[in-house]
């Protein structure tokens, strides 16, 4: 059974909504700016891909706003855009045949910051009781389900910086296994002080620019945002005459079982995940037109990723680019926002550029789409991601009906319910 993307929603530092997001990607606009969300004077770094244009009340009711932390607010705003983009009627998500599957790293980090801050600085009596149940990554799909009127499965996959791909891959599996007809999926992440400090302390953060694959790259720059997608089974999408933005192909998923933060130097797991994504799509590496890189701008990541590209594609130099040069590393949200960027590539043939690329690195001997967008073949692309925990996750996205039809998986017995 085929699985299609029928709607997308974006909250990002380079645009709210897919129109602005796509234009910015094509123009190579940077969303990196000086942090305003918290005081960075002492932290040794001052830049991030902060979403400064997001005004929650434009998207949420006052009651919704009060219920949620910033992460859920961005997730819900993007989810509303995605459902509108998909043209789903109010009430379309009722019943048990829908699911909300979202990824994140830290979830409602601002809620915990407030709770911890009150407790640590002023003592237990200063902790606001009503605030406690608002903490937990569990809440993202709960808030979204509630606002959208969904009544089926709610699930968070906290898969760190691969969370978007995990959620999208699992959502596609749910649809193919016949467990659901429509899944609202994707991921969200907010910029927060402790997590920002942590990346500085790991010496992973660049001073002002994220320069993936560049010889002089100095690390990542954190970002935030939400990317939400509506996925539908072919039967459901065809029945309601939905417009098909893209098709989800195979999804590869492995674990390095090597180090909690660093990718394996031989990138065996990452290699295997990428091969899985291609094989599970019924394709060969020769059919892949473009790869959206994880491309964090750290020394280890970009070198390992380049090695994977060379091993998977042999002598063929497949164009590769990293949207993190513009968005920063939005952690859990990254591969969801980038999946939506891939939808743009499939629609328009535009490969978004890796901005700030200056000096080629012999260790990263890949065809980087440097500084300016490029046009090229655009039937089938891969979206690569890696994460803390040794996670590797790759999703294949394609123009509708350009990949072989996958065979159905599992029993569809729940359909009888």
């Amino acid at each position, binding site marked *: 059974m085929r699985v299609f993307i029928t709607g997308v929603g974006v909250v990002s530092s380079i645009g709210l909504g897919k129109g602005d997001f796509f234009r910015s990607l094509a123009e190579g606009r940077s969303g990196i700016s000086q942090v305003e969300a918290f005081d960075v004077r002492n932290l040794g770094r001052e830049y991030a891909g902060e979403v400064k244009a997001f005004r929650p009340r434009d998207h949420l009711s006052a009651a919704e706003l009060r219920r949620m932390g910033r992460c859920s607010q961005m997730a819900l705003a993007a989810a509303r855009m995605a459902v509108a983009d998909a043209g789903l009627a109010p009430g379309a998500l009722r019943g048990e045949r829908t699911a909300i599957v979202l990824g994140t790293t830290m979830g409602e980090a601002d809620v915990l910051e407030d709770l911890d801050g009150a407790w640590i600085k002023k003592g237990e009596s200063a902790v606001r009781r009503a605030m406690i149940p608002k903490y937990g990554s569990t809440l993202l799909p709960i808030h979204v389900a*509630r606002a959208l009127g969904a009544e089926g499965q709610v699930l968070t996959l906290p898969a*760190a910086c691969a969370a978007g791909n995990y959620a999208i891959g699992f959502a596609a599996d749910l649809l193919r296994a016949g467990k659901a007809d429509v899944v609202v999926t994707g991921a969200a992440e907010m910029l927060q002080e402790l997590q920002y400090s942590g990346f500085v302390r790991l010496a992973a953060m660049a001073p002002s620019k994220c320069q993936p694959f560049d010889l002089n790259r100095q690390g990542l720059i954190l970002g935030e945002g939400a990317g939400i997608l509506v996925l539908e089974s072919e039967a459901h999408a065809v029945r309601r005459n939905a417009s098909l933005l893209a098709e989800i192909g195979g999804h590869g998923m492995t674990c390095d079982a090597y180090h909690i933060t660093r990718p394996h130097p031989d990138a065996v797991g990452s290699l295997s995940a990428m091969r899985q994504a291609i094989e599970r799509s019924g394709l060969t590496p020769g059919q892949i037109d473009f790869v959206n890189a994880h491309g964090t701008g750290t020394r280890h990541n970009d070198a390992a990723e380049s090695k994977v590209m060379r091993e998977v594609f042999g002598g063929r130099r497949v164009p590769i680019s990293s949207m993190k040069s513009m968005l920063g590393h939005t952690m859990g949200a990254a591969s969801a926002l980038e999946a939506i960027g891939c939808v743009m590539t499939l629609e328009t043939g535009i490969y978004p550029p890796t901005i700030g690329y200056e000096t080629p690195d012999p260790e990263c001997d890949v065809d980087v789409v440097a500084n300016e967008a490029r046009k090229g073949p655009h039937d089938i692309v891969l979206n690569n991601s890696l994460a803390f925990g040794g996670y590797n996750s790759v999703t294949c996205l394609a123009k509708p009906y350009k990949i072989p039809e996958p065979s159905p998986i599992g029993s569809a017995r729940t359909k009888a319910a």
Partner: protein
Amino acid sequence: MKPRAVTGLGITCALGTGGESFLRAELAGKPPRLSERERGAITSFDASKVPNAPIVEVPGFDPAKYLGDKGLRVLDRLTKLLLVGARLALHDAGLKKDNQWAAGTAERVGVCVSNAYGSLEAITELDRVAKLEDARYINPSKFPNTVSNSASGYVSIWEELRALNVTVSDGNCGGLDAVACADIFLETGRADSILVGGGEAMSEALYLAFRKLGEGGALGDTRIGEGAVFLALETIETAAARSAKVLAHVTGYGTAFVAPPDETTLIYASRAAMERAAKLALVDAGVTAEDVDLVVSGVSGLPSFDDEELAAIAAVLPGKPVVAPKLVLGETLGAGGSMAMAVAVELLNGAPASPLVRGEAPAQVRTVLVTSVGYYGNASAVVLTT
């Protein structure tokens, strides 16, 4: 779902630490509820100012006994609990012997673990440094523990499990949802065997949060617990091919969400969601309510939630006996569903039906429904059979 084989179990909980035969013996032997005095002193944090705190810890938790001394220092409590549970489950299932692969291979065994508040301990520890001293002084080696999936990542590292590693977060329904995820991963051929389970660790922050929520008696008799448990879940074919002992079969899953009736409510026990999840699980398993011998509930002593769950069970499975393992093991949140799964496996293998909160112990237990009501309007259920 297709029936899946449970071939092993590893648990570290209020009753102690061990494999399948350990848990069965403990369930047969212990009184249903340990008093605060019998339980011993709290060790996970300095609880001297809160005598008789309603906490159920893993008694005398000693990870070095199972894991050795090396490499434990930077790990948080949740990670250590999960590592112990995983090692025991792999050995109980015969996938490993003396820490070497005996039947499985690293590339074909995966991990799927439920957790609700695992990063709380590490985030709070680092917040303490950041708020009281300076964010520049936070310990970078502790930073990875602030990420929710780090504990399960360590399980893969320590046990060399490369097929996949997935953390699931759905509060106290997550343990049951993880089983549904593992089923899909087996169906899509991503692994032959999956350690599926859950973990939650006691910490001062977790305890204080619940104490605060419980002001005015809102939490009733609920005691917050901790622990980790893994079941080895395999396709029938994999289990048969390696002649594994099969402890039970997982045959059905259902889940549902019902929004609270008004805009301001957040915490919400939904009877309707529980009823729908239970019915879907029965249909998924291809059984009727009459086939079910016993219900393993999430009843924990929290009055408003217990009432809704028991009412839903009574509506879907009228007259069926109900047990409540959380009265012994505590409310272990992200691990709760997995603990209930482990108890269900033991009930199918002759453990006594205790503590019963409804009905009489059945003469024979062949089909069990495990239920859990989430805190936000969600609910899940799983069916297990012999």
